[in-house]
């Protein structure tokens, strides 16, 4: 298929491109930028005047709820949500039911995703069987089946010795281990950031200490094993400070933050709004500001949506009983653009886009997130100026809950191309 995307502002952070130009796609790959390749006649043309043309977004955490949680969402609806949000590659955590700890399950998931022919799905395999923190999984088999790394999702490993062995094993084969820095006991049962607001509201708190103590442990184990670790969903100023120091020391660590945490704080819980029930919890203004600074100075490698569809029955409950999580695939772009707009005095758009394209891809070890000649033609065309209202009807995902419900945000995807094929067009 020959695709011509014309007149758009092409922003490709990996290749340092930011100019109005044309893009040409042949047989699923980027064939040329600027001038058409010899003998090119387009089968399809997209006029991207006043639009941005960027690499398709790479989302480092999106729960698709299959297998096992089909009542919350299905692969069909969530993959549709992905391309509607401009996401062309996504990484899904292993906390499905059953847990992704068997190669057969991973193969089936990849097979189902391939058949839908929408975004590219890259599963994380479970680090331990059943995520129980005892027996190691067959990491080599799982990698062969398509896993790009190994994780424990939200389940902390209680036995530090097991975590040590898992990291040693992963290091043997060069696998990356994705870990949530979260102490197993401190803050257990907590539902909000430990601080004056949680005290006032009478909510159980998760102290920052739960994150920093876990980070210290992880860094010690990394020092000892040399294993590569990607830290998932940093939430605090103190935690980011530790990551900064670890990187300076030369430890092979990377980290991401959830896109909701770029903007919201614990104050957004308001009158016990369970849409603001997230994990890690939304923390203080100081922590949010530290996240912003860490995005600017490179301490944070990528921003992800942490897409977690939760159905109504699980949110219309008292705050502490509600299931944590927010829908995110269709908000990743707009909320990242919102952050960029708020960085006064500099055009932060290319840097912001890098967080959800090239940086994210590099962190996950994926050949995606960039549009050099010969690259896979995963492309998003969006209008940064169009405003839209975040409401159930506007979302393709079955997850309709986010603290941004009712807000108007900027940035609307006009078209999403995956492997040279138009997967979504408005």
């Amino acid at each position, binding site marked *: 298929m020959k695709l011509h995307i014309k007149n758009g502002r092409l922003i490709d952070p990996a290749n340092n491109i930011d100019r109005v130009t044309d893009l040409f796609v042949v047989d699923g790959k980027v064939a040329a930028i600027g001038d058409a390749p010899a003998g090119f006649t387009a089968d399809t043309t997209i006029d991207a005047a006043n639009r941005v043309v960027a690499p398709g977004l790479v989302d480092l955490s999106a729960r698709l709820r299959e297998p096992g949680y089909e009542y919350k969402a299905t692969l069909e609806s969530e993959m549709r949500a992905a391309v509607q949000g401009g996401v062309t590659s996504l990484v899904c955590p292993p906390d499905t039911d059953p847990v992704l700890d068997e190669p057969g399950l991973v193969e089936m998931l990849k097979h189902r995703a391939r058949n839908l022919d929408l975004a590219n799905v890259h599963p994380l395999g479970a680090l331990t069987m059943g995520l129980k923190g005892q027996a190691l999984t067959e990491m080599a088999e799982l990698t062969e089946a398509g896993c790009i790394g190994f994780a424990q999702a939200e389940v902390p490993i209680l036995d530090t010795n097991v975590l040590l062995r898992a990291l040693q094993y992963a290091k043997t084969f060069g696998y990356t281990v994705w870990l949530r820095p979260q102490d197993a006991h401190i803050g257990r049962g907590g539902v909000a950031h430990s601080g004056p607001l949680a005290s*006032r*509201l*009478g909510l159980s708190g998760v102290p920052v200490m739960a994150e920093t103590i876990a980070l210290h442990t992880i860094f010690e184990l990394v020092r000892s094993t040399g294993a590569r670790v990607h830290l998932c969903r940093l939430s605090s100023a103190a935690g980011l400070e530790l990551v900064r120091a670890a990187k300076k020391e030369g430890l092979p660590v990377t980290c991401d933050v959830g896109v909701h945490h770029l903007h919201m704080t614990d104050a957004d819980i*308001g009158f016990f709004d*369970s849409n603001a029930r997230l994990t890690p919890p939304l923390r203080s203004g100081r922590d949010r500001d530290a996240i912003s600074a860490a995005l600017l100075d490179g301490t944070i490698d990528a921003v992800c949506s942490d897409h977690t569809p939760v159905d109504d029955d699980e949110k219309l*409950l*008292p705050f502490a009983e509600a299931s944590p999580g927010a829908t995110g695939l269709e908000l990743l772009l707009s909320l990242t653009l919102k952050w960029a707009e708020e960085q006064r005095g500099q055009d932060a758009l290319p840097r912001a886009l890098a967080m959800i394209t090239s940086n994210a891809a590099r962190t996950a070890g994926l050949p995606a997130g960039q549009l050099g000649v010969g690259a896979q033609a995963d492309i998003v065309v969006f209008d940064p100026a169009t405003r839209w209202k975040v409401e159930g009807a506007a979302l393709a995902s079955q997850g309709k809950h986010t603290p941004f419900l009712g807000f108007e945000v900027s940035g609307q995807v006009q078209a999403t191309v995956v492997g040279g094929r138009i997967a979504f067009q408005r």
Partner: protein
Amino acid sequence: MPILHNNPQLNKNGELQHLLTIEGLPKAIINHILDTAQSFVGISDREVKKVPLMRGKSVFNLFFENSTRTRTTFEIASKRLSADVINLNIQASSTTKGESLLDTIDNLAAMHADMFVVRHAQSGAPYLIAKHLNDSGQKDIHVVNAGDGRHAHPTQGLLDMYTIRHYKQDFTNLRVAIVGDILHSRVARSDIHALTTLGVPEVRAIGPQTLLPGGLEHMGVRVFNDMDEGLKDVDVIIMLRLQNERMSGALLPSAQEYFKSYGLTPERLALAKPDAIVMHPGPMNRGVEIDSAVADGKQAVILPQVTFGIAVRMAVMSILAGGRA
């Protein structure tokens, strides 16, 4: 970046539609409730202890967390207003069969309830109910929070203020100490908000580190770990109940040790002002947080609190149920 939140306890005109918490209640509304309570105190002395204000209205006591004493005082208050009272002990009924909280509410609203008095183990549950009633157009059903998790117990806070006003009159020159497990106490939180709103210049929290929440200073409270220091020259002492669970949660070693450092004994009481009053939301653990000599002594006003509690609850319910001038 704040989400737009509408305070669900006030209606568009700033009038009280539900009583969910004392926090954010204007001082004028608090005083109005206390003044109204005053006019209800005399009714208990009459032959016919009733006024017809809520005749024909149905008050549903929804207790998702057990409490015979609070439920009883609300029941008495409702009946003194001539309302019909239905008691629902939700433990034993539909929610254990898996019915959601909001489905239970919808079912009861369909039975033409006028008022829900709700006690729940989760902070924020009454807000969920009030928001649901507002959103589903059932604006004439009022919600009274009878205690939600650790968050608030507004009628207790109000009756504590009524008690203090009765004995001390002027809030603006008082030192008030709250002693005990403030971390887990919704009564403490409501008292703190009421005291600071009414202009009490010094509110003190006294307890061991493990029982004090972070951020108390943000609420306008001076923290003391040493009870003898904390009680010096106070005018009002509010003692909180120590629950047995605290020992099993690694928060305290034993009740005996707690009493040694934080029990209100006659010797400790003597450190406060000679006319200081001793309050307790009840039920008391004698010998754990309070010595019997103090509980039965002349400075204790614990039983009057109970009497005032009925009048205060009558005031809250009749203000909510009344129309708007």
